[in-house]
């Protein structure tokens, strides 16, 4: 029984390592602050409700993309009855003037990398 201390020490170390994800999150103040987004100052309403846009803007943009590119339709009628031109750079960025302080901040927080800006040109974009 002379190996008892070694075994106990080994077991303790093993359990500590296995439980690492649990105690690491318990211990540290690891919560990431929600991103501070810059909302447009000169517009009150988005194309749809803010709640809907937050959750579903990617689906809406995909719908817009298909409508414009595949079907040649340009006009979007919102739930409110308001009509909009379906255009990422024309309509969205017209209000959300700063891509970096709106789109990118939240996408970084959510750890997603949409490919929109690989091609779509930000109107104010320079070299």
């Amino acid at each position, binding site marked *: 029984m002379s190996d008892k201390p070694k075994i106990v020490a080994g077991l303790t170390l093993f359990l500590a390592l296995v439980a690492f994800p649990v105690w690491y999150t318990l211990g540290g103040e690891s919560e990431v602050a929600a991103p501070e987004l810059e909302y447009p100052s000169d517009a009150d309403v988005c194309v749809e409700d803010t709640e809907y846009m937050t959750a579903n803007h990617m689906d809406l943009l995909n719908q817009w993309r298909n409508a414009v590119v595949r079907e040649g339709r340009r006009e979007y009628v919102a739930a409110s009855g308001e009509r909009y031109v379906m255009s990422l*750079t024309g309509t969205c960025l017209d209000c959300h003037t700063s891509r970096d302080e709106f789109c990118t901040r939240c996408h970084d927080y959510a750890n997603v990398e949409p*490919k929109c800006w*690989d*091609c779509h*040109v930000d*109107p104010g*974009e*320079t*070299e």
Partner: protein
Amino acid sequence: MMDESRRSFLKETGWAALGLGCGFPLLTTACGDSSAQEESVGQAGASRQWAMVVDIEKCMEEEIRDACITACHRAHNVPDISDPEDEVKWIWSEEYQNVFPDQVHTNTASKIRQAPVLILCNHCDSPPCVRVCPTQATWKRDEDGIVMMDMHRCIGCRYCIAACPYGSRSFNWRDPQDFIERDTNGEYYSDYPTRTKGVVEKCNFCAERLREGLQPACVEAVNQVDGGAGALVFGDLGEPDSEVNQILGERLTIARRVGLGTGPNVYYIV
């Protein structure tokens, strides 16, 4: 009794099988034919087909050719890559002998052989690029006959490049944004979406301008150059009185490699 009914049963079954075997194909072809006919009649009657007429003689002026190439490439943020292996082109010029290899004979003067001719996508009636595209990233629009590209869908397989007999398509071997001409403020000339590395691109007959009721950028540009009016004429083949139809009705025009049956819609006044 038993034998006879069995015999008659077999005979009837045989006739029925024969009837089914012959009747079905006849029926289906008959039905298929009529629907195909309706479709082709509908296409000829209702829809439009954009087309362009290039006046080769007027386009001999370098100034005119440069004006339309610059206008097009600025309007669509086409990268300017000098390496011919990587270059991207929407409208450009090639020597007559290469544009119309079947029009050149042993005694064609070298002056004519080497004459520059503007070329672009022919927006064919039956585009081979569309047939080979595995993702339908390129398709022919029913409403106006433009062969469109959807860059979101292009996977860069380059089948379309292999299929196009006119070399109208370019592949983005490099990130095009590094090679796009900018104005003095460092901004793009146009807000037309650039492309990305790994997709194929080509002339779209300025679909985005046609939507606004404008003429294609190249046509507008040549009309602003002295002596350039009419060097490029754009219009609808479906409209009997359109300017392109008038020219095609009066002048001697040719198109590229018509023997292939692709039905090119860019015509040349020789």
